[in-house]
């Protein structure tokens, strides 16, 4: 009996993950087949060795910390700024009138092309990158906060006003919790944006950070190391995403289904 359930579980695990191994095997075969340059497409074992090299040399820790620091500072500033702005726009009429067009018109404008300008304004170092991350993340967070606050269910607001809730109670106890799921979708959109922008700025012009290792190694034809650094960026992205999902489950416990971000 016990054997059977273990067997079932193993089979289930294989069924749920086999495609990963299929893709990895395909990579191995292509890499060793001689159809492509093994330098350009190194085997997984080579990438693993390079990855281990990055770990033991301390490079991964050094550059990873810099990348994460930039991403988190920019993202953190955007959380504060975005939630504050979105809330003010949703609650105060003249704020809404003044800023809503700025956000609805500015939302689809690609802000990445401002990076060269940012370099002149904020210098070559961390600040220009952090400001660009902040600007890119500010938009989804602000817009989601705004809509979350605006679209609180009418009956929930009515019921509280019916009980005599003042505007402060209404805000903290009704509007904030009912906007929380929407705000969270905004955060979940902003997290990958923060990482993307961080990596991009490090690829374009920098001498530190994981994005720099990727581009620098590639420029030196060390594609194995480049791929290893890419892999570590992937791990970071994956872990952050899972953390965010766990956090959401914890904070917004009353909504069982966690919808995708799109």
């Amino acid at each position, binding site marked *: 009996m016990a054997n059977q359930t273990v067997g079932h579980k193993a089979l289930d695990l294989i069924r749920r993950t086999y495609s*990963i191994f299929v893709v990895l095997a395909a990579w191995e075969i292509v890499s060793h087949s001689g159809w492509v340059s093994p330098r350009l497409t190194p085997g997984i074992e080579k990438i693993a060795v390079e990855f281990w090299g990055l770990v033991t040399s301390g490079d991964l820790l050094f550059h990873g910390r810099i990348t994460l620091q930039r991403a988190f500072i920019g993202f953190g500033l955007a959380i504060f700024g975005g939630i504050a702005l979105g809330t003010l726009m949703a609650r105060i009429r003249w704020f809404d009138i*003044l800023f809503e*067009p700025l956000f609805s*018109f500015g939302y*689809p404008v690609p802000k990445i092309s401002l990076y*060269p300008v940012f370099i002149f304004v904020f210098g070559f170092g961390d600040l220009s990158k952090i400001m660009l991350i902040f600007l890119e993340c500010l938009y989804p967070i602000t817009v989601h906060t705004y809509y979350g606050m605006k679209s609180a269910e009418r009956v929930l607001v009515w019921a509280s006003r019916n009980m005599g809730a003042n505007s402060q109670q209404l805000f903290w106890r009704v509007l904030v919790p009912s906007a929380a799921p929407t705000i969270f979708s905004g955060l979940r959109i902003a997290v990958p944006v923060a990482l993307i922008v961080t990596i991009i700025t490090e690829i374009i012009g920098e001498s530190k950070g994981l994005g720099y290792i*990727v581009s620098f190694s590639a420029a030196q034809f060390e594609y194995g190391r480049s*791929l290893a650094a*890419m892999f570590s960026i992937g791990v970071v992205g994956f872990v952050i995403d899972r953390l965010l999902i766990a956090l959401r489950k914890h904070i917004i416990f009353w909504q069982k289904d966690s919808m995708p971000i799109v």
Partner: protein
Amino acid sequence: MPVRLIGLIPPLALVIIWELCGQYHMLPRYLVPPSLIVSTTWRMLLSGELIGHIGASMFRIAMGFLIGSICGTAAGLISGSVRPVERFYEPLISLTYPVPKTAALPIIFAWFGLGDAAKIVAITLSIFYPCYIAAYYGAKSVAGIHIWSARNMGATRLQIFFRIVLPSALPQIFNGLRIAIGLSFIVMVTSELIAAQKGLGYLVGAAEDNMRFDIMWVAVVTIGIIGFCADRILLMIRSRVLMGQLLGKDQAHG
């Protein structure tokens, strides 16, 4: 609504202050007054130079967007309605989705060269994911009762896919496309900043290197305008296509 026009005051005020500061030479060199940006734009339009860069960028975006959105949406729809396909895709997607795809740019350049192909591949790869995920959840959330009633009327599997699953997933698919359009501009600008001979992103970088800040601003503004227009065109198509499904619902962001 005239009240809404008040919202135009802050950006207009900014432009005016910017221009005035420029007239009195109070601006740092990299901030070019708006009047100069406009006149440079006009000159570059007349000489055809700007059109060439716009064409190069638009070609890459259009190709990448077309391939990526069609592949991503098709894969997502099939994965959302056929179990074995779902079992294949799901672990791969959920593992690689949160990975910032821009990190692959240097490798993509190494594999596909410095020409158009690499840029199109980079855009395709980046937008495959949002399109896939949107279409997948769209297909998954089709109301069971719609499928039952279609089966009850004797619809075939293909009919159910094209007449029930696809239209019900459309609102989600458009959400994915909207994210994809924004992403494709980011990837386009970045890849052209890294390596290109032509294109708006290249123009930003090259002008900056040559300290021609007026040209840099022309490129920045042009990218902004095109990105904005692309988004609005998508929204227009969306409201046309989804006429019935959007009735009575709040319009999405924007």
